[in-house]
C-alpha cells in the first residue's frame, strides 16, 4: 500500500488484507504470558522466609550458648520451647488450644461479616446514615479493641458472648469501612457506562457497584480478620477463666502464672502462627486472585 499508484487497484482486496493487518497488530500488542517455573517460585517465595526464620533461631540459640542471657526464666532455649510443644502434642492438648481460639475467632469473624456488610452498604448509600455513622466507624477503627475487654466483662460476664462482643467491636468497623471506601472509589465512568446500558437502581448495584467495590471490601475483610484475632487474644489473656476452656491467650496467661517462660513462648509462637496462616491460606490468595483477574497485580 506504500505505492500511491496502486491504491485504487488494491481496493477490492482491502477486506482480506485488513483482517490480516489487524491480526498482526493484535498479536504484536498482546503480552505473552506464562507461569513462572517451580524452581523460581521456590527461590523467590519460599526460601527467603525460611532463611529469616533460621536466622532468628541461630541468634536465639547464640544468646543462650554464649551466656549473654542465662536466666531460663527470662529466655528459654529453643530446645525448651520445642520440648513444650512436644509435650503438648503428645498429651493431645496442642490442637485443643488452637481449636478453642480458632473456632472462636472464625465464628466471631463470620458474625462480624454478617453485621459489617449490610452496615457498610447502608453507610455507603443512605446519606443520613453516612453522616451519622461514618465518623463513628473511623473512630472505632483507631480505638484498640482491648479497651472493650473490661466493660464487656462487666456487662456480659466471663463467658463466650463477651469474647464475641470484643471481636465484633474490633472487626465490624474494618469490614464496614472497607466496603464503604470500596464503593466510594468506584470510578464514575463505570457507573455512567452502566447507566447507558440500563443498569440503574438495584441492577446497577448488583452488576456494577458491588463487583467494582470488591477489592476495597476484601482489603476490609483482611484487616477485619487481623483485628478479630488481636482482640480475641487480648480478651483471652485478660479474661481467662476455667469455664472458658484454654485457648491460646489463656495458655499464655497460664504460662505467666506458672512462671514458665517456655509455655509463654509456645503461646506467642502459636498466636503468631495462626494469624499468619489464616492470612496466607485464606485472604491473600483471595485478594491476589481478584486483583490479578483485573490486571491490578503486576507480579507475584
Amino acid at each position, binding site marked *: 500500500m506504500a505505492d500511491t499508484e496502486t*491504491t485504487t487497484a488494491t481496493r477490492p482486496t482491502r477486506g482480506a488484507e485488513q483482517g490480516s493487518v489487524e491480526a498482526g497488530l493484535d498479536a*504484536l500488542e*498482546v503480552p505473552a504470558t506464562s507461569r513462572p517455573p517451580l524452581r523460581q517460585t521456590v527461590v523467590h517465595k519460599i526460601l527467603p522466609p525460611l532463611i529469616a526464620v533460621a536466622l532468628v533461631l541461630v541468634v536465639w540459640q547464640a544468646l543462650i550458648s554464649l551466656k549473654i542471657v542465662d536466666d531460663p526464666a527470662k529466655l528459654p532455649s529453643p530446645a525448651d520451647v520445642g520440648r513444650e510443644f512436644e509435650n503438648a502434642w503428645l498429651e493431645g492438648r496442642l490442637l485443643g488450644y488452637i481449636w478453642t481460639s480458632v473456632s472462636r475467632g472464625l465464628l466471631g469473624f463470620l458474625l462480624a461479616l454478617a453485621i459489617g456488610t449490610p452496615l457498610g452498604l447502608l453507610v455507603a448509600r443512605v446519606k443520613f446514615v453516612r453522616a451519622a455513622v461514618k465518623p463513628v466507624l473511623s473512630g472505632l477503627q483507631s480505638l484498640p479493641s482491648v479497651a472493650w475487654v473490661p466493660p464487656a466483662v462487666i456487662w456480659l460476664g466471663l463467658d463466650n458472648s463477651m469474647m464475641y462482643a470484643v471481636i465484633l467491636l474490633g472487626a465490624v468497623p474494618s469490614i464496614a469501612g472497607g466496603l464503604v471506601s470500596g464503593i466510594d472509589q468506584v470510578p464514575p465512568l463505570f457507573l455512567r457506562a452502566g*447507566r*447507558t*446500558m*440500563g443498569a440503574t437502581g438495584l441492577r446497577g448495584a448488583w452488576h456494577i457497584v458491588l*463487583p467494582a467495590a470488591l477489592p476495597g471490601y476484601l482489603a476490609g475483610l483482611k484487616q477485619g480478620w487481623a483485628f478479630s484475632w488481636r482482640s480475641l487474644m487480648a480478651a483471652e489473656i485478660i479474661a481467662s477463666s476455667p469455664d472458658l476452656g484454654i485457648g491460646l491467650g489463656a495458655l499464655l496467661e497460664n504460662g505467666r502464672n506458672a512462671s514458665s517462660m517456655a509455655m509463654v513462648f509456645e503461646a506467642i509462637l502459636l498466636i503468631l502462627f495462626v494469624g499468619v496462616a489464616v492470612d496466607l491460606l485464606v485472604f491473600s490468595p483471595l485478594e491476589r486472585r481478584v486483583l490479578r483477574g*483485573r490486571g491490578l497485580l503486576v507480579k507475584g
Partner: protein
Amino acid sequence: MATTYAKAEKAARAAQAAEAAEAAEAAETGSASESADAGRYAARLRHVSKSFAGPGGEQLVLDDIDLDVAPGEFVTLLGASGCGKSTLLNLVAGLDRPSAGSLTTDGRPALMFQEHALFPWLTAGKNIELALRLRGVPASERRARVEELLALVRLHGAYGKRVHELSGGMRQRVAMARALAQDSRLLLMDEPFAALDAITRDTLHDELTRIWQETGLSVLFVTHNVREAVRLAQRVVLLSSRPGRVAREWTVDIPQPRRVEDAPVAELSLQITEVLRGEIRRHG
C-alpha cells in the same frame, strides 16, 4: 445510589413524556416535519442549551443547538478541545439533562466512551453479555449472540480474555461490540479512537464504516480530528467554542470506502481546518 438512579430515570422518563406531548402538539398545529413519528430521526435536538455552575457564576457551555440525525445517518461532530462535545453527547445519551430546549431520541442510545470503559472484573465476552442481559436477552441465546458480535469486530476467540490482556485497539473493538449489543438504533461515540496509534486507528475506521454499512445504524461520532471526521461521515457538523454553537455543516459525498490519504478527503479536511482555525482565532 439506587435512589438517585431511580429518580434520574423517572425524571428522564417524565421529560420524554413531556416532549412527546410537545411534539404531538406541534403536529396538531400543522407542521408535518415536527411530527412525533420517532422513525423519522434517530436524534433531534431543538434549542438545546447547557450551562454549569462555575466559579464566576453560570457558565454557558452549549448554546441553542439544533441538530438532527436521520435514521442510518453517520454524523461527525467536530470542535476544538473543551467546546462541549462530550457534554452534548452526555445529553443525548441521557446521562445529563439540558438546561433548556428539547431533545428526543429514538429509544435509548448506546454510548462508547473515549476510554474503553470495559468492566475489568468481567472477561471481554462477559462484558458484551452483560449488555445483552441488561436488555433482557434470554440466557440461552446470549452466548451465540456474543460470538456473533465478537466476529463482527473480528475478535474471534477473545471471549475468555481479561480486559487487561487485550491491546488498546482490541479493547476499543470489544467496547464497540458491547455498544452494538445494546441493539440501539443510535450509536454515540466520544472520540473512541483518540488514544490509538495511526495504523490501528485506520483499521478501526474501516471496521466502523463496514459495521455501519452492514447494520444500518445511525452514528453520532465526536472527534477533534478533522481528517477522521471527513473520513467517516456523511455530514460533518462544526461546533464553535465558548459557548458551543453549530458553526457550520458540510455534506461529504465522497464514496466509501475512503482513506484519510485520499485527495478529496484531504482537500475537504483542509477547507474545514481553515474554518476551525478561524473559530479558534476568534478567542485569541
